[in-house]
């Protein structure tokens, strides 16, 4: 192995490790389980090697070397835990605390701060500086970002992100020495840029904080759930940070094939709808003019009874590209079992794509729904305009079976579905257009259930339940799957994984894929499908 020109073998902390040529010591050390502390280094940005925290001892080198830019070489003997390496790190950490305020109790970063973590791990018990600290105060950088200059550790990740990724140099370092401070150019802040929220994630300390999240929750009170951003068809991997069954903020989750380490500001800040309080909480059945809340079993039996009476009059269905693949597949199966008919969906599209220039392949896509490709794979047809309205005129007047999944029908009148023999609405919120529905059935949002979305490239990615759905709301794949099971005399599907597997039998593109195959990073379906109208 050591002879292969493509790899080098070195010793790190007494363990021999073989890595590809060009690997840095910092990356190589990860393979022996050593996380070398660092601030300025970020895998997605250039490495200025200026924080000097990742210094390690290399036998034969005259002085400690920065592991973030030093490439591993054959036969190198690297010590990350030697007395010298530890002392240098301790020294650098002490330098940070000469001016960094100890305002952790009121700092948003507290609990997830790398200065706290590193100092706790290997800093001195007490700093020796008794001198007055320099003070910069707080600055509004525009957009969602507040800057607390005193806390800054001058890693310049934010400056480099704006220069290298957003490629819009809105930030810079002004002054020099310990008077150095990050600043905007006069009154030109971060307004109008679309990816600046990432600098808050990049900031290793609490110097850059989100206005949206400011003082909302402590880091240690938040539960982190891996998920997929529903704000466009890019399918950025995210984490939902929740507390009290509410989403408190959205953070990016690393996936080099989709979004790297980044998400756009629209996706980051557009989460309040998930927390919407006006939700359908119990199945509603309309008897004559009045509706009554009932149990699921009663509702489903009622649905099947009425469907039996209406069979033969044709089925028309409206789905939503915000529903998971599993939900859509179950819905398509239900439509088929009730006699079959066209399924349409509506999705909003933006005029412009907003790329992150420094990360090819990542953009806020024109298609603003997370699962339009999934809907297309299930042979649903996009209707309506680019604002996500219209296109349902013939559906609204349909006289047979009318099924709706997820679409809010905001633009539809209250006589929507009024002529239908059976009008069943599966959704999260009621409205004018559900007044005529015979059955209004509460389902959960993507944040409350397990499932998958298929992004614009055909990449199927999993999300996990971060919240508990309200009342009797259940995942659509579960309740619709129960109906299908009844109609086809098969077993009821009991898990999202089974629903996904069942979909594979139904749709060739998904054939053979399982949740285990998808993992946390997703997999690409076996065929590509262009969106309607593209």
């Amino acid at each position: 192995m050591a002879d292969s020109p493509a790899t080098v073998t070195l010793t790190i902390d007494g363990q021999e490790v073989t890595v590809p040529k060009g690997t840095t010591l910092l990356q190589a050390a990860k393979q022996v389980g050593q996380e070398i502390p660092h601030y300025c280094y970020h895998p997605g940005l250039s490495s200025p090697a200026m924080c000097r925290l990742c210094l390690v001892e290399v036998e034969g080198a005259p002085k400690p070397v920065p592991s973030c830019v030093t490439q591993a070489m054959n036969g190198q003997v690297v010590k990350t835990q030697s007395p010298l390496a530890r002392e240098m790190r301790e020294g650098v950490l002490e330098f940070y605390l000469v001016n960094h305020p100890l305002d952790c109790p009121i700092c948003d970063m507290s609990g997830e701060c790398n200065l706290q973590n590193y100092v706790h791990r290997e800093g001195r018990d007490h700093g020796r500086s008794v001198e007055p600290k320099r003070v910069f105060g707080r600055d509004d950088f525009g957009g969602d970002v507040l800057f607390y200059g005193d806390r800054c550790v001058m890693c310049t990740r934010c400056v480099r992100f704006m220069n290298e990724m957003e490629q819009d140099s809105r930030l810079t370092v002004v002054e020099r020495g310990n008077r150095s401070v990050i600043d905007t150019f006069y009154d030109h802040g971060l307004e109008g840029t679309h990816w600046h929220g990432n600098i808050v994630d990049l900031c290793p300390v609490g110097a850059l904080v989100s206005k949206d999240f400011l003082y909302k929750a402590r880091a240690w009170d938040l539960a982190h759930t891996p998920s997929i951003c529903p704000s466009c068809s890019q399918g950025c991997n995210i984490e939902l940070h929740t507390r009290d069954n509410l989403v408190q903020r959205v953070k990016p989750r690393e996936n080099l094939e989709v979004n790297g380490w980044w998400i756009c500001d629209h996706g980051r800040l557009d989460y309040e709808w998930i927390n919407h309080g006006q939700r359908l909480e119990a199945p509603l059945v309309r008897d004559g003019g009045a509706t009554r809340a009932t149990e699921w079993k009663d509702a489903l039996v009622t649905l099947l009874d009425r469907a039996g009476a209406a069979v033969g009059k044709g089925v028309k269905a409206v789905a939503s590209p915000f529903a998971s693949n599993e939900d859509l597949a179950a819905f398509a199966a239900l439509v088929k079992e009730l006699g079959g008919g066209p399924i349409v969906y509506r999705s909003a599209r933006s005029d412009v794509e907003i790329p992150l220039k420094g990360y090819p392949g990542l953009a806020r896509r024109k298609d603003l729904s997370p699962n339009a490709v999934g809907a297309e794979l299930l042979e649903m047809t996009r209707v309506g305009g680019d604002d996500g309205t219209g296109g349902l005129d013939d559906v609204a007047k349909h006289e047979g079976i009318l099924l709706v999944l997820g679409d809010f029908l905001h633009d539809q009148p209250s006589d929507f579905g009024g002529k239908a023999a059976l009008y069943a609405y599966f959704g999260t919120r009621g409205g004018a257009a559900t007044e005529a529905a015979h059955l209004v059935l509460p389902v959960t949002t993507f944040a409350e259930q397990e499932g998958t979305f298929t992004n614009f490239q055909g990449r199927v990615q999993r999300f996990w339940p971060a919240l508990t759905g309200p009342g009797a709301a259940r995942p659509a794949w579960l309740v619709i799957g129960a109906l299908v099971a009844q109609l086809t005399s098969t077993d009821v599907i009991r898990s999202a994984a089974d629903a996904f597997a069942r979909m594979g039998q139904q749709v060739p593109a998904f054939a053979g894929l399982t949740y285990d195959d998808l993992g946390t990073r997703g997999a690409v379906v076996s065929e590509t499908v262009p969106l309607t109208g593209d």
Partner: protein
Amino acid sequence: MAYPYVSDREVRLLSKSFGDPKGRRLETYVERGGYGALKKAFEMGPDAVIDEVKASGLRGRGGAGFPAGVKWSFMPKEPTRPHYLLCNADESEPGTFKDRELMRWDPHQLIEGVLIAAYAIRAKQAYIYCRGEFFETTQILAKALEDAYAGGYVGKDILGSGVDIDVTIHLGAGAYICGEETALMNSLEGRRGQPRVKPPFPAAVGAFGMPTTINNVETLSAVPHIVSNGGAWYRQWGTERSTGTKLFCVSGHVNKPGNYELPLGFPLMDLIEDVCGGMTNGKALKAVIPGGSSVPILTAAECKGVNLDYESVQAAGSMLGCAAVIVMDEDTHIVKQVRRIVDFYAHESCGQCTPCREGTAWLAKILRRIEDGKGAEEDLDTLLSVSRHMTGTTICVLSDSAAAPVVSSIQKFKDEYLALIRRGERAGVA
């Protein structure tokens, strides 16, 4: 006696025109044989020039003392990309004032050196990066360069040789750190003046990402003499490993401070007592900083027997650096001097590396406190420990430079620190 002070022990090769207002004119320079070396270099060819400079043993005069010919030989022999020669005229080290004088009195000597070096490393473009405060100097240099262009010594087809070399003067904006070679390149490119991580070294990736050689003004000014007279001739001065002459910038408590061009290996005490006319007011010598503010201090006792060449000064525990000799008499407050030096470095730190950004300012604050009589004995331990954490941990050596005088002064003049601390304690300040 002319030019503020001269000594008969000097060997005035580079400084022969100092004090002569005519020396800076093109016609005078040519009359005295100027640009002859350039013609000779074109006849020799680039590799022979490099070999000659190697043979001379000329070492970089900017402070590090790296052999100039060896540095040039790192450049690719078959250029596939543009090469650049940079002349570092950002003379900013406290205590040094030789490059300014070389440019003021003999600008053509520098321009000729720049041209020869550019030719040797196969560069078609050279930049002279001048310190931001050198207004007068830059004007003189710019006039000389204009004349040299008009005379056909610079530009296209120099002296009919077919060689094209352009020289551009670039004025810095007043940052000490831009005298560091890679910070200078950043500054030249229009970026923030911050040193770059090495490797890659300038000979591979330098200015504008191209192979680059950077030399000090004094180094390049010596080149025409070496090319004209040969490397062996140059070796008649100096020691085996520190060859030739060197400009010594003497400042402080001596009767005749100034620039003196002396053979390397010249005895330090002779420089102070003979060349510089002894200590002012007959005071006793206390300490000498032999190579600019960034090198360790030598006590009077340590100065005895030290010769001013790279090896001897290093053996004495300091560095020759750029040979800025700062002489301090018995009345000098060492703590105050060190504090002023550290203040300078705290002000000039570019701020990218943490140990330097925070450490220089921290050292300055502690020293100020001690000076004000508010220090404690454990502050000395803190100073030493902070200095240790600042040494060898940063991209460039500014941080090491700030730490060196602190460490050496505490080692050698601890009593002065303790006296200030005790006086404060007695007065009840601390």
